[in-house]
């Protein structure tokens, strides 16, 4: 079980979340050239190692979280709210490193 420290809800099982893919993808403007859209929609870095990605806490607060997780060890080194305004409002905008997901507060 991957354990994700949701800034709103605390440390929770990944089964409460849905995985929403690569968070480094920058979607272009709605009228951007087709090539930009093609790249954003179809091409992926797919790294073996740390991966910045979205998880949605669908079984909790509903927030999209931006998580840095190692795709080999599954260790999580950063969790923050994806929405910059919400991140700022909760004071958890800054990159946050947990001791290790399992060692965080419960």
């Amino acid at each position, binding site marked *: 079980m991957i354990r994700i420290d949701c800034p709103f809800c605390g440390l929770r099982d990944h089964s409460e979340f849905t995985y929403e893919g690569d968070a480094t993808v920058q979607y272009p403007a709605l009228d951007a050239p087709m090539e930009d859209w093609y790249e954003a929609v179809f091409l992926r870095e*797919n790294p*073996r190692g740390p991966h910045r990605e979205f998880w949605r806490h669908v079984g909790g607060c509903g927030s999209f979280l931006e998580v840095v997780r190692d795709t080999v060890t599954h260790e999580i080194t950063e969790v923050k709210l994806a929405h910059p305004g919400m991140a700022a409002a909760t004071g958890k905008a800054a990159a946050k490193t947990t001791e290790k997901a399992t060692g965080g507060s419960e």
Partner: protein
Amino acid sequence: MSSTMRRYNALNVFWNGLTGNKNWDRAWRDPEPKPKYEVIIVGAGGHGLATAYYLAKNHGITRVAVLEKGWLGGGNSGRNTTIVRSNYMMPGNCAFYEHSLKLWENLSHELNYNVMFSQRAHVSLCFSPGQRDAMARRYNTMRLSGIDGEWWALDKLRKNIPYLNYGEDARYPIIGAFVQPRAGTARHDAVNWGYARTADALGVDIIQQCEVTDFIHENGRVVGVNTNRGEIRAEKVGLAVAGSTSTLAPKAGLGRLPIETHKLQAFVSEPLKPLVDHVIVYGVGHGHFYISQSDKGGLVFGGDLDFYNSYAQKGNLPIYSDVAGCAMNIMPMVGRVKILRQWAGIMDMSMDGSPFICKTDVPGLYLNAGWCYGGFKAIPGSGWCFAHTIAHDDPHDINAPLSLDRYRKGRHIDEGGGGPVPKHH
């Protein structure tokens, strides 16, 4: 077939039995890499080995090296649930998988290695009229393409497979099943070993413990690879590395690909006397499940991806539990059967659920990837087509649709209609 390979047959087994099994040859050599080959295939999984075999056999190209960072057949082709079928309907898939199935039907004989292809029928359960109709379109397309497929109404299904949960307490009652009788299972290791042995006999160098660290480019062409065992040159290089494609692609000059690596778990039970005689598959209520019984007696089964990018060959409990639940849902008699092993493979999930067997924009570089979790059944067809593509520097008609640029053109081969999200396939 080369005369250097001593053929296997019943007489041989008998004679060697009498003489203490002392006289069996090595199944394949353990060669040192040569400085230069005509073709290098990266990855000695089923796809890579089959490609090497067909390069030698169909195209007479024997100066071939298959480079493997671990041991041959150690990736997904040695850790899957061994289902072989061709029940596809989309242009591009339909002809390709049927071509592969036809190769399977003669494979043991062709390779002189028993790959144990058992055409025990693939049974896809149906639960609602809507699902029936969508699957009817698929099976009708198959039938009109010369592929076998039939509908088993409830009475026939009950007669053939009496132990499924047809009861009132089923959350989703079964209404029937679509069946492909020629489909079935094969012994995964035997497929890898059979191709390895025969390719080796035809002169292919299978070089294990040889990890490709980089690619050598000259004048915009790929002309070889660097490995932990030194530089190896070749006129053409083919990639067949499944879940590791994205880590090698940038080095080869391919950049980002329409692939995400996900992990898929698989399970086997303790050995049991014959219990499940078919391949049984279903998807309903966000559940996905497939099961068959190995010749050793273990129930081999699996379900969904773990649904997040991962290169870890180990699974987590939520899917473990979900898959066991899917089993109990359809076969409530397996509650007391014990799971013996759980493992995971890393899947090269493409954006439409279908693979790539193609040339690339980099001259001299060829790609075989995007197998999602259906690569095993494709091994013969994939090797056959990839070999053709490499030998002719042009795809065969059968694999022409399986190109890397199809998304740019909007020609998705999306069997399930899941859209450009790998975890939906």
